[in-house]
């Protein structure tokens, strides 16, 4: 069984919700990323979304744009990121890892080469922001064949018909984008999220995870009431941004942000 499915079935049995932190790999420099990943697991992460830095992150707000810039300045490439995952797997063989990013770096390596490498280093899922299911008919099956989950987004603007298509193609979990906008935008509206998740429940058994606009324990707990998982990105990346001059303090800060959310969600 894929580690993602394994993890969600465990959580279900325990009656708990998934906490899914996102960080951009290579930010503020590549040598820190694996340490951050372990710190996030220590603080209660159930799945890790590892961002692939890209020069043109069109769906991201300023916080993650700058994280990409820092990572790219340090020369972080997709191949380096795969090595980070391999290193992480030397000591953590259970926490699922999802790579999240844009298509061009993958397109450049080549779909098949990428899928082979990702599977061999221990990646569990891939979420390509600018690749909806309609454009995934070549890449999706390559992932599936290697046991990698193709994870797709659902947005507040997604029609019923599209949602059905996405549910049919999606694996691992569905990533519900809580608001119209880019990452790091305003706080979400939990009632609105609940309303949008309800029809999705009828379409799929996939876990429904919610991202965009979750910034603290309060919002995390609110969302955890209606969703199967909570995804938090900019709130963590902000801490990295604030401490680029003292990188040794970052892991501790990430832990405390995430631990606060874990506590609030489990309360």
């Amino acid at each position: 069984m894929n580690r993602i499915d394994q993890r969600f079935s465990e959580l279900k049995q325990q009656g708990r919700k998934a906490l899914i932190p996102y960080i951009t790999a290579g930010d503020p420099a590549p040598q820190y990323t694996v340490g951050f990943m372990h710190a996030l697991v220590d603080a209660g992460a159930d799945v890790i979304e590892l961002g692939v830095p890209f020069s043109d992150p069109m769906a991201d707000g300023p916080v993650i744009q700058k994280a990409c810039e820092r990572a790219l300045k340090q020369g972080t490439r997709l191949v380096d990121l795969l090595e980070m995952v391999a290193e992480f797997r030397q000591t953590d063989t259970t926490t699922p890892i999802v790579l999240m990013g844009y298509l061009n770096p993958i397109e450049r390596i080549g779909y098949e080469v990428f899928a082979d490498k990702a599977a061999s280093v221990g990646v569990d899922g891939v979420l390509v922001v600018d690749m909806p299911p309609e454009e995934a008919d070549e890449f999706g099956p390559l992932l599936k064949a290697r046991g990698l989950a193709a994870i797709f987004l659902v947005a507040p603007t997604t029609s019923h018909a599209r949602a059905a298509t996405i549910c049919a193609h999606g694996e691992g979990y569905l990533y519900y984008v809580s608001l119209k906008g880019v990452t790091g935008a305003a706080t979400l509206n939990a009632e609105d999220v609940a309303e949008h998740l309800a029809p999705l429940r009828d379409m799929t058994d996939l876990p429904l995870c919610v991202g965009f606009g979750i910034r603290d324990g309060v919002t995390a707990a609110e969302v955890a009431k209606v969703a199967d998982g909570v995804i938090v990105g900019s709130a963590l990346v902000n801490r990295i941004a604030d401490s680029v001059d003292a990188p040794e303090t970052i892991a501790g800060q990430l832990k405390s942000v995430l631990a606060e959310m874990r506590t609030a969600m489990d309360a």
Partner: protein
Amino acid sequence: MTVSATETKFSDLTRMPDARGHFGPYGGRFVSETLSFALEELEQIYLSLRDDPDFQAEFDRDLAHYVGRPSPLYHAKRWSESLGGAQIWLKREDLNHTGAHKVNNTIGQALLAKKTGKPRVIAETGAGQHGVATATVAARLGLECDVYMGAADVQRQKLNVYRMRLLGARVIPVESGTRTLKDAMNEALRDWVTNVDNTFYIIGTVAGPHPYPQLVRDFNAVVGREARRQSLEQIGRLPDALVACVGGGSNALGLFYPFVEDDAVAMYGVEAGGDGVETGRHAAPLSSNAPRGVLHGNRTYLMSDEAGQVSDTHSISAGLDYPGVGPEHALWKDVGRVNYVAANDKEVLEAFRELTHMEGIMPALESAHALAHAKVLAPTMRPDQHIVVNLSGRGDKDIMTVAKIDGIEF
């Protein structure tokens, strides 16, 4: 990437894109999910209107009475003689209202925006011509208008920035990335994702996600339809060659598309060679054999490094300073219908000055790329042969740039 480009015949080129917006392996709709519904909506509106006689009539009326079409096909006799070869004819898009071909597309998209009832339009712009054309139609329809422009371009196209402001638009300088056209497009997409309920995005070239490459081409194809008819009337036959500059590629496709099945008509798309393609400092994805890639919603040839990060580009011309190119051009390169070449900054300036001196026509620096290649091509042809060059815009906006090169400060 299911359809191989090499299986495509010239006669298939008029039937592109397919129902999902693919031009062979190129094009498509690579966007984040939030935008999918807006693109589906736009596609439906466009498909329902494109063959609607009332919509066509309204578009034609606006082009005639607001833009001033048809634009003339002018025989540049003196310049042709001095080059000593083929006759050069200029398709005078510079004479359009607002000074470039860009307005053909913004008129069309503004009509679509009106149908959606959205009160706000946004645009990205490089040279500012598309921004000006968008601000113009927005003023005319009473729509709120925000234009994203790379901070570097705001500096080098000050005149157009002020024009947009006079027209009532807000110009938002974009400080991220390379601070040029691609970054302006990123920011416009971010705005659109946030305000998709009340905002219509008027994309300025044959790029972006489906259906933009198709509809921008269709709205600009009036250029080629006129040029074809005018050639038959004024030359007495079709021209031997067409030449147009290629940034995203809208003026080139607009001219080329109605000639695509005329096999005897050669076509040349001229990219921005910057310091020279061999230096790596250019904006010429097709003629430098850049790899395939995905940016701004479509697959195309895209200048990027080995890790898939999009490359910095260099050009004297803000309107061509873009690392990608419309997906239909990518297909036309593969099937060999168009020859893609580059002209470097120095050659472009020479052509700019030469046309100004010899014909009293000051071209946009973008259009001067096409002229620079016509200069190379004409002497290789006979005096009874004919070249039509798309003079896509006028050079007023570039006077500051040229003056600076001449060491003149205002």
